[in-house]
């Protein structure tokens, strides 16, 4: 306990206070989630330094964040159902509500007016006014069987819409708020067993949901009407023995890389390349471990991958042209997350059990900086405000 207090005092001393009176932009700011201590660090990615720490944010295991359109505020979704609006300029909590008992993530509408949170307990999705965090809509996720469901893979879609999947019920729902604050729901039932995450391509066209309970991915082409949920990569591992999965893969970093996507193979040490036109498998990349995040560099040239426990000490870099691993390195114990600067010149990598975030040059792969952080997990830069599905 004493050691822990000492540790936090040390970290607090390292974090310089924010100067509220100083004029500055927020486009190069970001946050680092300190999952065990319910705090975040506000970071300046140009200076590769910490501007301050914001505490009192609750249980931040699996916390994620989205940003206001002006990139001043981060909306942080905590495991305990806490939704916090943090002011990056003042380093303070502008507003905080406990919106559910147990949450998994969230999204912000394209017009910046609605923040949606995806919940495990009591399930469903709740939508809030982005300015005040006042409740706008509560959408229970009752599956075709009438049972409440956890929701996963919540993303924003163009046209003031949100898409998400029902984990228990095996469904995809699209909630359309374009006409009013009462959503029009489109439901796709029977899409497959245990959808574990979903994401939309950066152009807002393809919503894809990974299945845990069976091999396959579900695809909704949002440019075609009527909307249809179709299986792709069906039985991609047919007849192969799956490995135990010690950490669920995430599809958050599923950016399109050139003309294909790289999808984690669940229970496999590989990524599956999917052609974005034909939606057929075009190749596989053998990886060091089971991929958790496969994040495309913003220009799509490379994809950086981290791995599930117990092979979570390494990062591999894949050349998206040749689908070859071109670099492997070991940042340290428990690599949690990778976030690129907006145009990809640097990658920030959280190394949980080393209590630090490491910054790498994405051209030379040289380490450029280390930032002390207490059990860091997610890293989120404010430029996400400008991207669909983030």
């Amino acid at each position, binding site marked *: 306990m004493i*050691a822990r207090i000492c*540790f936090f005092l040390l970290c607090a001393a390292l974090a310089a206070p924010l100067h509220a009176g100083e004029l500055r932009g927020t486009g190069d700011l970001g946050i680092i989630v300190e999952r065990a201590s319910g705090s975040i660090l506000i970071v300046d990615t140009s200076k590769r330094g910490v501007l301050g720490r914001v505490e009192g944010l609750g249980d931040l*295991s699996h916390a994620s964040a989205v940003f206001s359109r002006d990139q001043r505020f981060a909306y942080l979704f905590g495991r*305990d159902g806490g939704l916090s609006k943090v002011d990056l300029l003042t380093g303070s909590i502008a507003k905080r509500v406990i919106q559910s008992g*147990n949450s998994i993530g969230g999204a912000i509408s394209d017009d910046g007016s609605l923040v949606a949170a995806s919940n*495990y307990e009591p399930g469903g999705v709740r939508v809030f006014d982005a300015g005040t965090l006042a409740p706008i809509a509560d959408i229970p996720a009752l599956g075709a069987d009438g049972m409440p469901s956890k929701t996963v893979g919540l993303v924003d879609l163009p046209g003031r819409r949100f898409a998400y999947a029902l984990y228990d019920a095996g469904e995809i729902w699209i909630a359309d708020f374009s006409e009013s604050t009462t959503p029009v729901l489109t439901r796709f039932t029977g899409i497959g067993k245990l959808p574990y995450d979903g994401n939309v391509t950066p152009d807002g066209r393809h919503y894809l949901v990974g299945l845990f309970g069976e091999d396959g991915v579900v695809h909704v082409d949002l440019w075609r009407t009527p909307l249809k949920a179709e299986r792709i990569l069906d039985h991609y591992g047919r007849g192969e023995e799956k490995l135990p999965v*010690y950490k669920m893969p995430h599809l958050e970093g599923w950016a399109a890389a050139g003309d294909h996507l790289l999808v984690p193979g669940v229970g496999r040490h590989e990524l599956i390349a999917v052609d974005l036109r034909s939606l057929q498998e075009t190749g596989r990349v053998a990886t060091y471990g089971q991929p958790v995040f496969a994040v495309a560099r913003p220009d799509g040239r490379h994809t950086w991958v981290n791995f599930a426990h117990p092979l979570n000490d390494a990062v591999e870099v894949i050349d998206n042209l040749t689908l070859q691993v071109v670099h492997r390195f070991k940042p340290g114990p428990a690599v949690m997350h990778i976030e690129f600067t907006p145009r990809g010149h640097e990658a920030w990598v959280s190394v*949980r*059990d080393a209590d630090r975030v490491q910054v790498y040059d994405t051209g030379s792969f040289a380490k450029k900086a280390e930032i002390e952080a207490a059990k860091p997990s997610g890293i989120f830069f404010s430029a996400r405000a400008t991207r669909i599905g983030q």
Partner: protein
Amino acid sequence: MILGTLLLAAMTLVGGGAAAADNADPAKLANLVRQDCGSCHGLALTGGLGKPLTAEALLQWDAGQLAQIILDGIPGTPMPPWRPLLTEGEARWIAEALKSGRL
């Protein structure tokens, strides 16, 4: 480094009361449960994609049953078998620590 050592020492003291396993490293196991089991069950073990692992939530199972679940997983769900990574003694230590609510 000194802080890290202190932290480890503190955690060892906390976990030192449990003698369920000869080969269990309490600090390492406590970190594993919080951080890695926590990816699904929540850092505070109050549940997530996986069920809550609080002492109250686990009343209906005894430590032996929990150790079996840890080692063999629950087929048809994302709960994986930890046998490739944990010994029976370690699984038993975790099961008892969860039952007593000290993790």
